[in-house]
């Protein structure tokens, strides 16, 4: 923990230095200018992430690497300390900190990165571990002015949380600051916050989003299909949905068969009447119509003999009826209506429908 060791004597030295800030500011400015001339590798992306002007962010970027090699001897410690202070000063002004020099010195003791990393959750423990320790040791030292330090810490955390909410990539950036930031800037990301204990790479996040979409649609389907609410498990629900679609399609076929057998009375007036009447009726009575009732109407109609004569389906090999072949149960309450001389197809067609309705 060289940085902490370096800063501890620095903080001890900083005490007597408070009285003469003017002398040190010159030194500070020199350090600042030295720092600013160092070109950052990828300051653009990183600094945009941090919402800081490039210069300040660059200083922060170089803060921790430079605090590491800060040599133990006092003059170097002094130079390390002013680095902290000088770097913090523009940073704090960016965040509207109190410009009190004493407070800033106290704040300067906390390495900014450590303050940034502390509110981060589990996903990146390894990288933040070293820096978090720095932060934790710092509060022990700064007993002189805890309030301002708390303020700065809280402000840092608040700003960080803002950043977190804005970009999920921040989580992954902690792994590798340089590369990932480039990708983050280029590709527009869905702004999703990674949940606790879940993987955060783009693949699994996209898959999770997809899964959620599919689950939402499954819920809609469950509401549409009657009797699906009680069933749990996607496979069973899907089976139920498939059965429902099948039964609806068969109903349409039966209805069209029924319409085909009805007397085609060619009366335009009648048709007109039917249209208007059916429209007005439909607008009022549709809620009362239940499809299974259709089957109970068969014996009521006076055309039963007609049906029995005409429903000879020897010649019928419809492609649409091929679907019925998979239905093998033979429940025949209304078999008397249909004279199915030929194929099991037609019988299963009818009975399959009845089975699904009853």
């Amino acid at each position, binding site marked *: 923990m060289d940085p902490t060791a370096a800063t501890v004597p620095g903080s001890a030295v900083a005490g007597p230095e408070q009285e003469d800030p003017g002398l040190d500011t010159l030194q500070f400015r020199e350090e600042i200018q030295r720092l600013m001339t160092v070109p950052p590798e990828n300051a653009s992306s990183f600094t945009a992430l941090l919402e800081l002007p490039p210069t300040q962010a660059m200083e922060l970027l170089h803060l921790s690497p430079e605090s590491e090699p800060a040599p133990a001897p006092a003059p170097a410690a002094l130079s390390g300390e002013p680095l902290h202070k000088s770097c913090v000063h523009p940073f704090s002004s960016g965040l509207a900190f109190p410009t009190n020099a004493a407070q800033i010195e106290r704040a300067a003791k906390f390495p900014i990165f450590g303050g940034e990393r502390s509110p981060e959750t589990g996903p990146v423990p390894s990288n933040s571990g070293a820096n978090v320790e720095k932060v934790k040791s710092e509060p022990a030292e700064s007993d002189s002015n805890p309030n301002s330090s708390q303020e700065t810490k809280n402000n840092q955390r608040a700003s960080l949380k803002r950043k977190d909410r804005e970009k999920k990539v921040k989580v992954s950036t902690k792994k590798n600051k340089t590369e990932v930031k480039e990708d983050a800037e280029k590709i527009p990301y869905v702004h999703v916050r990674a949940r606790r204990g879940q993987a955060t790479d783009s693949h699994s996040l996209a898959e999770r989003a997809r899964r959620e979409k599919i689950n939402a649609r499954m819920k809609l*389907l469950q509401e549409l299909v009657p009797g699906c609410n009680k069933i749990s498990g996607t496979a069973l629900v899907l089976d139920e949905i498939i059965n429902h679609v099948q039964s609806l399609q068969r109903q*349409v076929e039966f209805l069209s068969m029924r*319409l*085909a057998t009805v007397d085609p009375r060619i009366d335009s007036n*009648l*048709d007109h009447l039917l249209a*208007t009447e059916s429209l007005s009726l439909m607008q009022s009575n549709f809620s009362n119509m239940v499809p299974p009732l259709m089957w109970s*109407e068969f014996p009521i109609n006076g055309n039963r003999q007609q049906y029995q004569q005409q429903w000879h389906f020897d010649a019928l090999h419809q492609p649409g009826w091929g679907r019925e072949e998979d239905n093998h149960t033979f429940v025949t309450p209304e078999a008397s209506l249909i004279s199915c001389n030929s194929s099991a197809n037609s019988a299963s067609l009818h009975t399959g429908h009845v089975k699904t309705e009853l």
Partner: protein
Amino acid sequence: MNPQLLSLSPNNSSLKSRFTLGFLRALKRLNMQTSSSPSPPQTVSSSSSSSPREMCRRYLRIRIAADASMASAVGSRRAWSRTLLLKIRNRQFRSCNSSARRISMKKKCSGRKMKKLKCDKEINELRKFVPGGEAMDACSLLDEAAHYIKCLNTQVKVMTRIADIYSAT
């Protein structure tokens, strides 16, 4: 009663009324066709003497008319209605082989590796029943299936009503 009902503009009316109108018109057309072209050996279309083949043909035409009027009532907003309309038009032009197969050839849309769902079998089964379902991914398939079920419900209700009215009178 109200001849104005028949002249409802498509924008104002609901799916149900659009479908009803289209279907009734198609039925009317079909009835006129059968009545206007009676072959001399067979009598005019009185139900007792129409052959099974006649009726079978009529049934097929009515079914196609029902699907077509449903699909056109929905419009081109939905993939399944587009597929249905294409199928019907291709059938009319007798070129169903080429274009229908070309449409259904494309299995997987998403370029990335397909996620392995536990219910893949069921989803593939559902594809068979929803028109145009072959070329959709699971997400949009479920979407289309929901809308398709809703429209099928409407269709069944309307056709039951029409059949009742026809058989009652």
